[in-house]
């Protein structure tokens, strides 16, 4: 049994301590926007925010988290899909299959929080999630667009 703060709500979850946060979020908490892609922190489809930092939840054992850790998933990014990153993604029709986009959006939101006006190089370094459909060109443009909106 663990206590987790997910999207501002405390949840009691029944999982072995070595269960990855990803699977606790998906199977116990029941939020499926956070995706399984590789299980080895390579692809970033499972990206969530923990205390404001983007983290790959497939490789974080739930037992290492405290009740005071603030976990935010894609479902908790904004109540109405109105985060500037979500709006920019919609404006540029970024997603193709969409499977990786929760992770991409979480990574972009974390980047912009730290760095409101990222350069292309900043984006290169921060946006390391895999997209198999190849939406990278639009992701880059959408991060810039979202940055403009923030200003």
């Amino acid at each position: 049994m663990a206590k987790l703060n997910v999207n501002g709500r405390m949840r009691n979850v029944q999982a072995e301590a070595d269960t990855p946060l990803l699977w606790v979020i998906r199977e116990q908490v029941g939020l499926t926007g956070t995706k399984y892609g590789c299980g080895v922190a390579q692809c970033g489809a499972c990206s969530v925010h923990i205390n404001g930092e983007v983290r790959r939840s497939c490789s974080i054992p739930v037992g290492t988290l405290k009740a005071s850790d603030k976990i935010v998933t894609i479902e908790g990014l904004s109540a109405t899909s109105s985060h500037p990153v979500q709006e920019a993604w919609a404006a540029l029709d970024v997603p193709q299959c969409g499977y990786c986009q929760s992770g991409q959006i979480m990574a972009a939101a974390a980047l912009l929080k730290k760095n409101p006006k990222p350069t292309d190089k900043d984006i290169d370094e921060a946006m390391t999630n895999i997209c198999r459909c190849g939406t990278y060109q639009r992701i880059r443009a959408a991060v810039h667009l979202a940055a403009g909106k923030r200003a």
Partner: protein
Amino acid sequence: MNRRKFILRSAAAAGGGLALGFNLPFSLSSAAAAQTAAAAGAEINAWVVVKPNDTCVIRIARSEMGQGTITGLAQLVVEELECDWKKVATEQFTAGQNLARKRVWGEMSTGGSRGIRISQDYVRRGGAAARMMLLQAAADEWNVPVGEVTVANGVITHAASQRSTTYGRVAGAAARLTPPDPKTIQLRDPKEWKIAGRPMKRLDTADKLNGAKIYSIDLKLPGMLHAAVKACPVFGGKLVSYDESKLSGRPGVHRVVKVNDSTVGVVANTWWRAKTALDALPIVWDEGAGATQSSATIAARLKEGLTASGEPLAGWQEGDALKAIEGAAKKVEAVYSTPFLAHATMEPMNATAKVTPDRVEVWVPTQNAEASLAAATEEAGLPLDRGEVYKLDLGGGFGRRGGTQDYTRQAVAIAKQFPGVPVKLIWTREEDQAHDFYRPISQCKLSAGVDESGKLVGLHIRVSGQSINAFLNPQGIKDGKDMRQLQGLSKEPGDAQFGYTVPNLLIEYAMRNTHVPVGPWRGVNTNQNGVYLECFMDEVARAAGQDPLEFRRALMANHPKHLAVLNAAADKAGWGKPLPAGVHRGIAQFMGYGSYSAAVAELSVSDKGQVRVHRMVLALNCGHAVNPDQIAAQVEGSVAYGLTATLYGECSVENGRMVESNFHDYPILRLAEMPKVETVIVPSYDFWGGVGEPTISVVAPSVMNAIYAATGKPVRSLPLKKLTLA
């Protein structure tokens, strides 16, 4: 229809290149919603349902896996329907519904970049017929000739009497009318399109931004159990035994199941528990004869095929190529090779099944819902009409989730052992890498003869490699010859034609199969044949002392459409104009899926041999461009998919199994490596070509040719990560 006939129909439809897909907006919730929607609206015909609030629900037969087919097909229907685009919704139906209605929606298979080009005529007719019925219903109500009523954005007007109504108001009456005589349906000239042909925003984006979209892997059903599986890592090997006692006391584990002759699974109350229990399960395999195979043994077998004689060879010829090359002033010869590749869809293989003694239901990401239905009912031992397939939009397809449906069969085989209980099967990424239907491996030997004036007088192309048809569709092989492996090198126009005129030409394919399962991989054989032909053309151009673009142009007078895209790419890229120091260009053209593609790559190669692709310009003539922005998206995606293969892609074989197991050793292109992509769409409006796949074929060769320009050394094998380019 019996299952065999049904499978054959599905397979035959897919036989021309069962790669990409279609889309039905269908999740468990949307399935229920769809039924509600249909109940609340009037079905004017199979393609169009109109609701009282004027929402027009467009039915989509093809699978959506990111390629945008939902939006494109809806645009085509709406173009003729003339409803309000802002009030359009889409809906997917099930394979069972299609079967029950005698395939009123035609094929559901989504592959070979066929979604739009094959169905455009009948879906547009569906939209037009619905419009005619809606207008007739209004005219009947007003008692005026139908010729006097007009429609715009779903509002019907009779100008003379200043009356107007809406589609929603007359839909009930329209649905009761007799459909118009098909001969009276006139489709709009594409040059007058208002909805089709425009860069409309995708209809399926909103749920992809907030986690709301339910993929098959996300499905939750009451009482559902979870399964993980492992198949013998050596292809063709068998399951001998496992020691279930080692799992005793593990939380949540229900039991170990034999899935089939080569696969074992664990069923538990969560997937993570099933997966970790399976990891802990001692399993004994009989690895079989395949265990002796390796990349080296396979390469040797293919190499032998490059020069073998006395066997049936697919191909065609003009003149006497061997003689012409023999007598030529200058000879060029090279051997190329390309590896096995995995699809690596972001959403791993998965399926949920529920089996009772008289019914099987499956929820799957599938490019071919009808193949899923055939597979599920066969595995369950039930007739076709006792099955149902709920298709969910795919987290990538790329040809992996077409006719084979191995994961659907596995899910049914497991669920059969838990009657009445839904079981969701998810593969690990490792299982996904280990048990794909890989892009087949091949090699190619090319020889050319050039005369004193630098003219190409003879060309011989011999491809040796594995046949997809031999593995999946043996009836596609005639007299031991499989023409499909020569995709893009065909004599016949229309689909994948060789774009050069060479007086003496010999093109051959020698089949060399392996124990590795193979299948269509986005772009299929055009990718490899494009590398072989287009990289060798640069080698010959150089031997002839000519610019690669000019050398090609001189051979393309009889192939104006190939030439036009080549010119379009060259013009946009500024071929021949100065480049920054250290930056080099490469060019390529190829045809596949009924469309013409060309690319120019700009890149630099560092002192250490690191390739950095800066810019890629791609030109595409797909005949008609239904949604230019989504075509651009497909081209951008094709660059990423093609560049991944060029830089990194290889599945190598050791002891009969695949070596690469996850993204750490099967790397995928990342954002920092993505070049600037410029898409030039040059539709000629006289045919319908595909979009999802054709441009991949020119990505690798244009990049390889630019490296040749940079280093002076031709690149003849992939991936680049294995080569020293400095």
